[in-house]
């Protein structure tokens, strides 16, 4: 890929961000959904669930939603609400870890690559191109083959897919920022290169990265569910929205709630991060407003 320097819009991601986000329709709805997801996830993480997510109630198998089990029970009499909450915690853990990992690594590779330029830039970006040549889910599956299935390995699988994306998103703005006068000025003042990169270039490239973080969270939520659905991610009996959906197959006629609730949970979570991403982009990049 050739280096395409984007016209630069420097927008501060400061304290006014939240206020501006709340005034944006997509941003506000997205933020609300993400907050809901966070609350449910944290409750699940702390095991503050109505029942244990693994506890089986053999007498209460496949009960439709009722006052005891708000979202019904599954084939083993496990409480769907509790499993959904712990599933939220699990997907949240995978999403946050994988996006932190890929975001940090990708941003580092991208900014250094763009800032230093030359051969290093060429080598790093060619290596990233190799990763781009794989459809994302296949690359994630390949990582799972090497590491074996499991929740933590899903984190690495998603991180491998997203690191090149972050690298590319971070590199673009660096190319235009590093040619700006304030960078030259800093250099004239004798500021060391590492410091220029960290304090002068990086903060001015954050806007697209922040938007990308939101989209990456949405994608990692989907991928965790997808891999678990295929049996390559979170392993049963540990609850994950993907595992729950997969277990609902074949029972959907008998117990549609087993499919509806995890399905809705995934949709609302993804919708939340997508809307938040849209809102952030509107707020941070005025050129795209209303698109």
């Amino acid at each position, binding site marked *: 890929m050739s280096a395409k320097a984007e016209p630069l819009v420097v927008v501060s991601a400061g304290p006014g961000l939240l206020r501006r986000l709340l005034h944006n329709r997509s941003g506000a709805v997205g933020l609300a959904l993400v907050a809901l997801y966070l609350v449910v996830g944290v409750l699940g993480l702390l095991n503050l669930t109505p029942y244990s997510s693994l506890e089986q109630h053999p007498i209460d198998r496949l009960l439709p939603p009722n006052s005891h089990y708000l979202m019904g029970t599954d084939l083993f009499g496990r409480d769907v609400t509790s499993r959904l909450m712990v599933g939220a915690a699990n997907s949240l853990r995978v999403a946050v870890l994988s996006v932190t990992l890929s975001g940090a690594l990708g941003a580092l590779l991208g900014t250094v690559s763009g800032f230093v330029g030359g051969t290093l830039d060429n080598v790093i970006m*060619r*290596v990233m*191109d*190799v*990763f781009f*040549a*794989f*459809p*994302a*889910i*296949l690359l994630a*599956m*390949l*990582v*799972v*083959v*090497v590491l*074996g299935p499991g929740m933590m390995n899903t984190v690495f699988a998603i991180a491998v897919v997203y690191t090149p994306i972050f690298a590319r998103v971070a590199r673009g703005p660096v190319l235009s920022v590093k040619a700006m006068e304030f960078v030259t000025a800093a250099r004239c003042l004798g500021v060391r290169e590492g410091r220029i990169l960290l304090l002068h270039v990086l903060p001015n490239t954050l806007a697209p990265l922040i938007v990308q973080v939101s989209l990456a969270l949405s994608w990692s939520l*989907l991928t965790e*569910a*997808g891999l678990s*659905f*295929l*049996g*390559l991610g979170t392993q049963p009996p540990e609850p994950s929205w*993907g595992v729950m*959906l997969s277990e*609902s*197959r074949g029972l*959907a*006629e008998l117990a*549609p709630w087993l*499919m509806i609730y995890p*399905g809705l949970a*995934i*949709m*609302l979570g*993804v*919708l939340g991060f*997508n*809307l938040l991403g849209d809102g952030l982009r509107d707020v941070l990049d005025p050129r795209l407003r*209303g*698109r």
Partner: protein
Amino acid sequence: MFRYLAQRLIAFLPTLLGISILVFLAIRLVPGDAIVAMLGTEAGMLTQTQRDALEAYFGLDKPPLEQYVSWLGNVVQGNLGFSVRHGAPVLDVILRRFPVTVELAILAMIIALAIGLPVGVLSAVRHNSVIDLAGRLFALIGLAMPNFLLGTLIIYVLSVYFSVLPNAGNYVGIADDPLRNLGQVLFPAMTLGFSFSASVMRTTRSAMLEVMGEDYIRTARSKGLREWRVVVRHALRNALIPVVTIAGVEMGYLLGGTVIVEEIFSLPGIGRLALNAILQRDYALVQGVTLFIALNFVLINLIVDVLYTLIDPRVSYVRKG
């Protein structure tokens, strides 16, 4: 044009080499012994001589670099190895499954464009109207609905309300029984097409909004052209470039096998082949399928670049050199 194509192909060589190294390394990184992985528990019954003979046969006794070079040499000649599980050469297994995926991909793409383009154009032309709002809502849902959920829902609705099981029975080739084949491929294609139509819609809408504000649209209108002609002939044609881009990328993904949808609907496509190869630890097949899919992906991207020149005469690769 041909010079450009040749240049692009040469520029792809390092990427292709990188892909092959990555695939080769990934399989070598799998923990455990390759012989054990191949034979399972039966490997324990081998004598040391038999084991050495097998290792020599598969070239596992040679240093990794030598293994890679000889593997690459074979790949270039079209020999992707032998699938233990299928009892057939890897390339044969892949080519037998590939038509299913191609059919699914093409049908899904048609569905996505048939929904996404008109809705996107309408949304942009009636900007901020009820239609626009409905269109945007549709896109939001489409983007948030994972295809394993939509697929499961479609199967549920079909089986409960129409007593049809789209994934029942063996897959029938399009040449054997076109109607039955369509019945088997249509619903998975709808599942894939729906998700993608949402991105088509969004991209079309935003590109149309941008184009509709251009001077030449005002000119076309002031010439007295009918509105639909302005929209289709002048606006849409110019708004198509980003749509072609995402359609191309999506086609690459679709041809890479839509693992989840093929799995849900029990279609013997290339994605399911890859998944089963992984689950069954058929490493020669994993290696072959992965390489095949990545090559496909790269080729599709090249084709998309060429398509640009056909849609937009301003994009010329010849002069750039």
